[in-house]
């Protein structure tokens, strides 16, 4: 995983609550066996009409948001299916940060495995950020969002922050605890399946 770098970008406001992972990547695109190339399927059913032409009223199709790296959405973003394809699609499209008042647990966890930063902020602050038309700056190390008019700090647990900043491989870290895993297995009373 690549280390996370600070982001300077305009924001894309997706003013909807309960955006589920079926909307982020519809199921017809889950049949691929690789991780790359999901960006073109992001919000597919909202972005394109039945003839696969871009819809006129969906925010991602508005040219002023092209190149944006920050998506700002409503409460409970990423609910529903555990599909990590949702994270791959957001990243492949170009987003590196999602801001929302709250996130669904599995989506939230999947973000950190791939270097996508989810930032949870108070509803009022999220609403004010959605109005920002100038680029905003996000500094993960300092945990600060800078807009043209204000500085907002955000919370992130220190472990998750470290993983993102250093781009750490989860599994390699876990393997350092190999002895403990083996010890646990020796004492486990749960039988094998077979």
């Amino acid at each position, binding site marked *: 995983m690549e280390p996370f770098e600070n982001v300077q970008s305009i924001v894309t406001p997706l*003013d*909807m*609550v*309960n955006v*589920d992972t*079926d*909307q982020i990547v*519809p*199921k*017809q695109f*889950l*049949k*691929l*066996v*690789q*991780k790359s190339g999901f960006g073109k399927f992001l919000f597919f*059913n909202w972005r394109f009409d*039945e003839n696969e032409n871009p819809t006129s009223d969906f925010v991602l199709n508005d040219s002023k948001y092209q190149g944006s790296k920050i998506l700002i959405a*409503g*409460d*409970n973003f990423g*609910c*529903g*299916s*555990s*599909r*990590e*394809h949702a*994270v791959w699609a957001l990243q492949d499209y170009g987003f590196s940060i999602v801001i929302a008042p*709250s996130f*669904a*647990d*599995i989506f939230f*966890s*999947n973000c950190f*495995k*791939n270097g996508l930063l989810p930032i949870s902020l108070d509803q009022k602050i999220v609403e004010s950020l959605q109005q920002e038309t100038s680029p905003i700056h996000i500094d993960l190390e300092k945990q600060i969002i800078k807009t043209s008019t204000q500085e907002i700090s955000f919370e992130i*647990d*220190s*472990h998750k922050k470290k993983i993102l900043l250093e781009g750490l491989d*989860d*599994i390699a870290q*876990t*393997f350092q*605890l190999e002895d*403990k*895993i083996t010890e*646990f*297995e020796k004492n*486990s*009373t*749960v*039988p*094998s*399946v*077979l």
Partner: protein
Amino acid sequence: MGKTLFEKIWDSHLVEEKQNEPSLIYIDRHLVHEVTSPQAFDGLRMNNRKVRRPDLTIATMDHNVPTTDRSLPILDQTSSIQIKTLEKNCKDFGITLFGMDSPNQGIVHVIGPQLGITLPGATIVCGDSHTSTHGAFGALALGIGTSDVEHVLASQTMWLEKPKSFEIRVEGKRKNPHAVTAKDIVLSIIKNIGTGGGTGTVIEYRGDGITDLSMEQRMTICNMSIEAGARAGLIAPDEKTFDYLRDREFTPKNYDTLVDTWRENLKTDDDAKFEKQFTLHIDDIAPQVSWGTNPGMTCDVTESIPSPDEYSNGDANQKKGAEKALQYMDLKSGTSIMDIKINRVFIGSCTNARLEDLVEASKVIQGNKVSSDVQAMVVPGSQMVKKQAEEMGLDKIFIDANFEWREAGCSMCLGMNPDILSPGERCASTSNRNFEGRQGNGGRTHLVSPVMAAAAAINGHFVDVREMDLN
């Protein structure tokens, strides 16, 4: 202070505990399917890693398998590649696979319990959010993403922040348990606490309204925990649990010894404290029907569709969500639920496609015909459910009524195989998600119980099954 059941399972699976950080927990059972695993196996190959415990890992294919004749080739090339990829991965990494032609094939959350793979007190993961189903047996069962699938394959462990404990008490007795089902209980819970109500928690369902339920009904409840946003949902095991798992194909040999330990340990202590609490009284609840595009947008069958104002209780964002939902569903506030006409019926999914679900639905169907405006299908949750149902003659009841009787799989719950709604079609579905396009682009889903779906199939619109004789 005492511990909750969840805390006991958590504590007994800690490999490395960290304060205010994720802890490393051991995973006793890993279930794998074709959609969320290929990239995980690729990751193992790229790093030259193997599967640590193939003996704790079981795979099947369910999400995009066709439910038509199994002897025919799969026409969808991408589905076919995904299925072949799972076959190759299981072969390369030494994992037991219940493939297309196995009598054990089926929806991963139906076969786990049915084969005795699911065990009380165990930690169970699967790259599927409805893994919460297995919590019905007093297991800590978590849906995970593909990176975690890879992590568990490689290390048999997972990093997880300890969720909070949420007690949901279900109290009282349903007057007509054949008409008001476990599905109606769980939809009522989600309607009350909301789709984010359980976020960050593990729910323990307690109370006489829960202990009264059969194991299959308990699975319906735990299955939809994720629809309330919970990390998992569980129910303390009791004699019903132990009986259900006895003498299954993979029931452990020392089962009775295990049961003795479980009986003693797997319960919440009297003085344990939950961090969150909700109580539902079920004496008077009605059959539920969802009207919107998330499972919280649900009302009684006897009610009318609420206005966005009534639904949102003053929350502007929720109101906007309800307006968008009504537009997508092509419904108007004030319309009586029983006046909503449907043209498709789906009885299936990991929520409601077990034997008991099919038995209950068949009682409604018997001697009746599907309305001429409706296309209806039954997709048993597993090949074993299908076989048992056929031995009972249920297939004949459904087929005589003009239902399609299919092979096992996830099918139209998420429409990854050819079973999908066409744009504008309206479906009474026993599945778990009514999201936009979930069952097919432009399709409209109403979540209901199997008996409600069966009754809607016959009548062409929703009816109150409490008015029918279901005994």
